[in-house]
């Protein structure tokens, strides 16, 4: 089993990325050359985009983290009201393709934007717009990481600090902040990676502002220049791999900080703090809901911005690229990715963690399972196109089919699915397998009859995560989807390319609603499963 998993990891990840790296350095005569890198770096426009990309990532960190920290702090460390609603709203951007917030920003601050007069003659196109859109997109990721960091507070430290007479301000800087520092580092890394690898926002709102991800897209789809695309993809892959590596280190440190004897933290009542946090968090939530509402509104008017009478013309999606079928295609892909991905990742985690043979292979697989997080979707998608397109490849038959979309998407989002499975399985008594073995039942029985039912809530959550991401991703599928199998997220991109902003907003919101419905259903299902397994509340023993 471990061998099978390692083989799959090599075919689905290592080999394609290897081919990508190889193509970026292989000259037309078959020799190794750095000429493409040289050409890229000597082109002033492309070199410029390299620098701009780095600046964009840095600015995204600086702008996202304070907002996300405020939001997470409000949710974890205060007594503000409507925490549940705020928390739910904070994650909404995850459910929409990354183009959607960018489009909303165009409607608000474009040349005809509702709020453009506020900008006093400026427009949102360019670096500022891309940055804002990336902040919206990365915000939920940062909030999730920071909430984890802040929720792990050790109440004893606060009691100690209070006993020593420290002011709230001093407690914040000496206790809260240091405790969250690894969470901040890991959030920073994730924000950076998301910001530099996204293509949705630069396409919609970038104007003349160019970034590496856009270069890959243009080189490959616009000019069919795969070698140059591979070079840019490699340039994109290097920092994201580095940053994701740092992120994992920070995560490990973070979890090491919660000692077994930590006690929970209960926020003390404070009107001033809670009032301020409520205003801040409320404003952020309002902004998120506002962006989505603007998109929905634009999708429902007759002719933005001149005729705002209600109309369903934008929903006549058959007239536009992709059409209604693309949303069905996307749901089909997302379902396949969710089911296949959750099953494969869970079984893989089971094999790595809970079987005993071939330790070297299991170790190798658990390392490889962390790699996809470091590979940007565009790089992976391009690597697939290069790897599977080769007729000499025995897996060439997959190219241009549905299966390759599923494999690529599952691979792209594998790390989170794997790690979630691992931690769900870790909660399982390590003596389950020996206990079953003593009763004449092998690991397969334990997997089906014990591990799977117990981890069912986690499995639902993994499937949910995969579904939502498969619905919204553009980068990993844009080079791979068969021409007769358009996907909704790509359709949004194409509609935007064609200038069909209304239908693009309609389609984007459709993706959002599908995801919202699936998430509500999935979380309800996971809740039911969890309650079924949960201990009946009983008097605490000791």
């Amino acid at each position, binding site marked *: 089993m471990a061998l099978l998993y390692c083989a799959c990891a090599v075919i689905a990840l290592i080999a394609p990325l290897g081919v990508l790296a190889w193509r970026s350095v292989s000259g037309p005569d078959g020799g190794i050359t750095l000429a493409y890198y040289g050409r890229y770096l000597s082109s002033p426009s492309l070199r410029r985009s390299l620098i701009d990309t780095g600046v964009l990532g840095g600015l995204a960190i600086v702008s996202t983290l304070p907002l996300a920290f405020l939001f997470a702090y409000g949710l974890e460390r205060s007594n503000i009201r409507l925490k549940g609603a705020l928390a739910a709203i904070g994650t909404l951007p995850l459910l929409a393709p990354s183009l959607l917030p960018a489009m909303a920003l165009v409607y608000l601050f474009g040349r005809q934007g509702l709020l453009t007069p506020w900008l006093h003659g400026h427009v949102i196109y360019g670096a500022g717009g891309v940055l804002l859109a990336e902040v919206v997109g990365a915000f939920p990721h940062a909030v999730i990481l920071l909430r984890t960091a802040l929720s792990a507070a050790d109440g004893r430290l606060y009691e100690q600090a209070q006993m020593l007479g420290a002011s709230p301000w001093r407690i914040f800087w000496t206790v809260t902040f240091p405790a969250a520092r690894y969470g901040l580092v890991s959030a920073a890394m994730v924000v950076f990676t998301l910001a530099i690898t996204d293509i949705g926002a630069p396409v919609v709102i970038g104007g*003349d502002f160019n970034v590496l991800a856009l270069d890959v897209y243009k080189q490959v789809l616009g000019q069919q220049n795969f070698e140059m695309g591979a070079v840019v993809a490699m340039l994109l892959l290097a920092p994201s791999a580095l940053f994701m590596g740092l992120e994992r280190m920070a995560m490990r440190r973070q979890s090491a900080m919660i000692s077994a004897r930590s006690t929970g933290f209960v926020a003390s009542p404070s009107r001033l703090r809670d009032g301020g946090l409520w205003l801040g968090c409320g404003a952020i939530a309002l902004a998120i809901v506002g962006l989505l509402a603007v998109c929905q509104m634009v999708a429902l008017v007759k002719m933005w911005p001149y005729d705002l009478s209600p109309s369903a013309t934008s929903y006549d999606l058959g007239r536009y690229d992709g059409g209604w079928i693309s949303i069905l295609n996307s749901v089909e892909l997302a379902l396949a990715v969710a089911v296949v991905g959750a099953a494969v990742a869970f079984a893989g985690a089971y094999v790595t963690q809970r079987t005993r043979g071939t330790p070297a292979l299991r170790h190798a697989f658990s390392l490889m399972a962390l790699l996809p997080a470091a590979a940007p979707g565009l790089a992976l998608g391009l690597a697939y196109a290069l790897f599977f*397109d080769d007729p000499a490849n025995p897996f060439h038959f997959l190219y*241009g089919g549905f299966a390759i979309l599923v494999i690529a998407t599952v691979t792209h989002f594998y790390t989170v699915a794997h790690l979630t499975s691992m931690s769900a399985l870790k909660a399982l008594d390590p003596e389950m397998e020996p206990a079953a073995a003593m009763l004449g039942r092998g690991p397969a029985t334990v997997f089906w009859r014990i591990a799977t039912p117990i981890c069912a809530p986690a499995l639902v959550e993994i499937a949910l995560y995969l579904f939502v991401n498969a619905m919204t991703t553009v980068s990993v599928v844009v080079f791979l989807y068969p021409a007769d199998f358009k996907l909704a997220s790509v359709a949004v991109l194409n509609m935007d390319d064609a200038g069909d902003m209304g239908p693009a907003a309609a389609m984007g919101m459709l993706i959002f609603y599908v995801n919202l419905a699936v998430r509500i259903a999935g979380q309800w299902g996971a809740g039911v499963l969890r309650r079924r397994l949960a201990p009946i509340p009983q008097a605490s023993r000791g």
Partner: protein
Amino acid sequence: MGRSIIAAKQAARAAPRLLLLSALALVGACAPQKRVVVYTAAEADQLPMYAAAFKKAHPDIELVWVRESTGVLTAKLLAEKKAPRVDAVFATAATSISELDEQGVLAPYTPLGGDRLDQRFRDPEQPPYWNGEALFSSAICVNTIEAAKRGLPIPRTWEDLTKPIYKGAISMPDPASSGTGLLTVNGWLQAWGETKGWDYMDRLDKNIVSYDPSGSKPCKDAARGEVPIGISFDFRASRTKGEGAPIEVVVPPNAVGWDLEASAVVAGAAHPKAAQIFTDWAMSDDAMKLYADSFSMVGVTRFNKPAPYLPTDLANRLAPMDLAWTARNRVRILAEWSKRYEGKAAHKE
């Protein structure tokens, strides 16, 4: 090989759909025996009309559209040369089709009534590798509300667009990714010669606010007022105005670039007979009438009728163009273009 791939793909795709929409999958399994798979760069909003007409003419043949932008479509066909996945090409720029022809992607076929075609719409070779359907050409969409707001006069000629007053007011398609962009640039280069053409673009570039990925976007952006002036193409301009957008369609008096929408049979097609039937239909009177609803000039001249919002003397305004020259020089022109304007574009902020 190619067929088995498609069959395997369909089987692979049927599995999840079976879970999802088993009824649909069953319908799919009992599809008509004959089918024809067609790559097309036609505008998405034109396709349903063509599909309905073809279905009426040939109810026994299942028509499968695969729509892509011109650039992507060309690249895919080139990549799939050894194992074609499609049977025919429809409503795709003749420039791109010529390039495909040179690469040996196409099969020669004289459609029924091919001799009715106007000279301009014919492949010089006999038998022809492609057949023109309709002619499309550059057009300028000017948002009258925004122009008034900014105090911009309506431009009438290409030269007008380079006036300093239009600084930051114009967008046009990027010729690297848009067929419209390419034909517009070629119109200038072939009407005025390369030196004058590039000089013109240098001056125009000072006024350009963005180079868009598609030929439609500049006009649709103009319709929304995102930009006052968008260089686009005739069908998009008249369709957008017809939908009620506050724009005026301007066709300059000369050097208007153009290209043909054309059909062709793909060499090594899985369904060659159906591909020929489809091409016959694409050249039929019925199809020509449909083209004439969208375009002012179609392959069979007698169906021409004035298109709304477009000048009746369009033919006189067109640049003298050699499609074969365009096809041969495409790569060189694009390289020159990106050297001049892409590098500059990034610094524009």
